[in-house]
Every structure is written in structure tokens, then in C-alpha cells.
């Protein structure tokens, strides 16, 4: 694979235009369920960032020839090997008082969909350098959302920032619940989309985020390479109804069926009754 893509290219696409949380809808669990304060969001994003880079680099370096169905448990094991000792050390050897939700949600990062998506979609198909670039870009994009959402939820839900009281007249308990986070994500996604449509209009088609018309010559992140992979593997971690790096293009049932057929998947055959 080519190494011609610069970090900037990868960063703009991975962290901004196809932001893992706001566009690809990956990694929603930690942000929706646990990013209720700056502290928790910072911890989760730090763990997610480190884990994403480590697993993607390892996957790119050593797991390219391992079958996909064997790679998936390996991501979990590698993640746990990285996360659990650190968590164990914090729990038993330091005075840091982790909340119950942090003790549970931090290990859940090991099984995060951002990791699975980017290892499968990018790392195992590219050089270690590009895998590192992609993981760093995606990690920064996800972490930025985690922290921004954490700050907003803490401010609106608890009237504090980083534990420091802030004088606001009303607090909204609902913002600490998952639906509050989803509302914030909705506005953030709308803001991001408006920004992309102004700065990168080539990625917007009929109001929906899509692949750039003129793809770079490098085959690494082209639609074709992703689709080629999907044709051999129905259940790629990547969203089925999306373009390139995951901009979900919501479609009608007919469009979805047509899209699935184009990938060689017959929805009738894969029905529940089967």
C-alpha cells in the first residue's frame, strides 16, 4: 500500500469529515453512557486513544495474514492486556477514587467499535505508519467529541466543570442520562455537517455526507477497496449503508435492499426465518 497520504490528509478525513462518533456512529457506548463529566470523559478518551493506537499498530504489523474471524477476539484480548493492568494498578495501588461506572466502562473500551472498525477497515490493509496516522486521527476525533460532550453534560447536568462549581441558574438532570447525550450529539453532528458542507462541499451530495468524487490516487481508502472487502465479508464492522469511511447515508427500504444486493447480499435469504 502507498504511504503517500500525509498525516494532515488522514487527519482531516479521519477526525473531522468522517468523525468516528458524529458521522460513523462508532464508539457511542462510552460517550452516551459514561461521559457525564470532564473527568470521566478525559479518562475514557485517554484510554480509548492509547488503545486505538496500540491495537491498530499491532494489527497492521502482525495480524494482516490472520483470518478475520480470528482477529476479532484478538482485538479484545490485546485491549484487555493493555487496559486491565493499568486499571488494576489505579484501583489497588493508588488513591485515585474511580466511580463504579468508570471501573466498568473503562474495560468496555477494549471492545469498542471504533477499534474494530478502524483495525478492520484500515489498519490490516495498510502500512504501520498509515495505520498509526489513522488511529491517531480517529483517536483525536473521538476524544474531542468525548471531552466536549463530557464538559457540556457536566455543565448542564451538574453545574460544574471538572468538579468546580459554575454558577448557572438551572441544572438539567436529563443531560446526565443517555438521551441528553444523544441530543448534544445531534446538534454537534449538525454543526459538523454544516462546517463540512462549507469547507469541503465535495463531500456533500443531496444533503448527505458521501465519498469525495475525485478520490486520491492511493487505493488505501477508496470506496472500491472497502466494497471489495465487503463483498467477501458481509459483516464487516463498517456500516453496510455508508460511503467510504462511514458517512451513513440513510435510505429507504428499497434503497437499502438495492444497496445490499449490490454487495451480493440478498435480504430475503438472510431473513430471520432462515
Amino acid at each position, binding site marked *: 500500500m502507498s504511504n503517500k497520504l500525509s498525516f494532515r490528509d488522514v487527519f482531516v478525513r479521519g477526525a473531522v469529515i468522517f468523525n468516528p462518533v458524529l458521522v460513523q456512529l462508532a464508539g457511542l457506548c462510552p460517550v452516551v*453512557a459514561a461521559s457525564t463529566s470532564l473527568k470521566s470523559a478525559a479518562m475514557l478518551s485517554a484510554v480509548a486513544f492509547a488503545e486505538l493506537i496500540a491495537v491498530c499498530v499491532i494489527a497492521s504489523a502482525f495480524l494482516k495474514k490472520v483470518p478475520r474471524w480470528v482477529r476479532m477476539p484478538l482485538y479484545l484480548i490485546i485491549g484487555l492486556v493493555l487496559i486491565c493492568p493499568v486499571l488494576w494498578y489505579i484501583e489497588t495501588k493508588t488513591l485515585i477514587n474511580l466511580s*463504579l461506572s468508570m471501573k466498568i466502562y473503562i474495560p468496555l473500551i477494549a471492545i469498542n467499535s471504533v477499534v474494530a472498525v478502524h483495525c478492520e477497515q484500515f489498519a490490516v490493509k495498510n502500512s504501520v505508519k498509515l495505520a498509526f496516522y489513522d488511529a491517531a486521527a480517529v483517536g483525536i476525533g473521538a476524544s474531542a467529541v468525548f471531552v466536549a460532550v463530557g464538559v457540556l453534560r457536566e455543565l448542564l447536568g451538574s453545574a460544574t466543570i471538572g468538579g468546580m462549581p459554575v454558577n448557572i441558574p438551572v441544572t438539567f438532570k436529563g443531560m446526565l442520562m443517555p438521551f441528553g447525550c444523544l441530543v448534544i450529539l445531534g446538534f454537534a453532528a449538525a454543526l459538523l455537517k454544516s462546517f463540512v458542507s462549507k469547507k469541503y462541499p465535495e463531500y456533500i451530495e443531496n444533503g448527505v455526507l458521501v465519498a469525495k468524487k475525485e478520490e486520491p490516487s492511493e487505493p488505501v481508502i477508496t470506496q472500491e477497496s472497502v466494497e471489495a472487502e465487503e463483498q467477501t465479508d458481509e459483516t464487516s*464492522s463498517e456500516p453496510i449503508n455508508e460511503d467510504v469511511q462511514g458517512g451513513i447515508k440513510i435510505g*429507504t427500504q428499497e434503497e437499502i435492499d438495492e444497496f445490499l444486493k449490490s454487495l451480493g447480499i440478498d435480504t430475503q435469504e*438472510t431473513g430471520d426465518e432462515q
Partner: protein
Amino acid sequence: MKIITDLFLTAFYTVFVQNLVLSSGLGMSEAFRVSAKPGTFGRIAVMISGFSVVTSALCAAVNIYAVEAELSYAVRAAVYGIVLAAVYAVVAITARLVFKASDKFLGTLGIAAFNTLVFAIPHINNSAAYSFAGSIGSGLGAGVAFILAAALINKGSQLIAENEEIPDAFKGTPAMFFYVALISLAFAGFTDTNLFG
């Protein structure tokens, strides 16, 4: 009788009162992804239930020991992860060698096994101190909660796609976020508490 009651009450709790996907965010990314493939709902839900139930059953013994030995959450997570990976390995190898399963099937199996919903079930059983039957019920409920969430999201995405009045800024994922937020708000009517506090 108490076993059946425990099982069904926990399953009901997991599906509605604290819908693990929509009220707690567990496995939400996977629900979004799977929602685009309506034909696979049932299969994935059965797999999720299967993995949750088997992992719950095996981890129930771990949980009893964990409470007695005061195991740290890091060690518990590691054990749950190893159990989950082992269950997947047994199922995948059996499917591959005995039933000659295709890569597609094994890929689906991987998605059903390795998501935050299935991995969180032993933690939930542990923190809620569910009985063995309750643990099985929560495993079964996880699958139902998942299929319910995926079906609701799927229909929502169709409604949004057909709606040409949606402002450009909200078209696609932003509108989907609001759609799911309002469903999540609706489920909040059952309980005003968050999972794990």
C-alpha cells in the same frame, strides 16, 4: 416457579425498564449498523442472546468467587473477557470445522460476540446481584433489547429518508441522533436512574 419468575422479570427489566441499548447506550453503535440490515436482525439477536446467556452462566460462578475474594474490577473484566473470547472460539471453531460455516457467518458471529452489550452483561449481573436464573434472563433480554432497538432505528431511518422537509444541516445522522434521543427519552419513563449509577 421462582426461577421462571426471576428469569422473565429480569428479561422484562432488561428490555423495557432499563433497555440496555436505548436507555443505557450499550451496543448502540452495533444497533445502528445492524439496523441497516433488517434481514439479519433475528440472526444477530439470537447470537447476542446466546453469547450473553452462556457468558452470563459461566461468569455467574466467577461473580460468586469475585465477591468472596473481593476481586478488583480490572481482574473481573479480564476474566469476563477471557470467558467471552473462549466461548466465541469454541462456537467459531465448531461452526468452522463441523458445520463448514462461511466467512460471512463467522463475521456475523464476531459482531454478535464482541460488542459492549454482551461484554457488559456479566458486569450488570454482578452489580445487580442477579440470581443464576436472573443472569440467564438478562442475557436473553439483551438479545431482545438489541433487536427492538435495531428495528426502531431501522424504521426511524426510513422515515427520515422519506422526509424531504428536514433541513440540510440535520439530514442523515443528526436527525437520527434526535430520533434515537427521543426514543431513549421515552424509555426513561420506566426509570429515572442510570445503569451503574
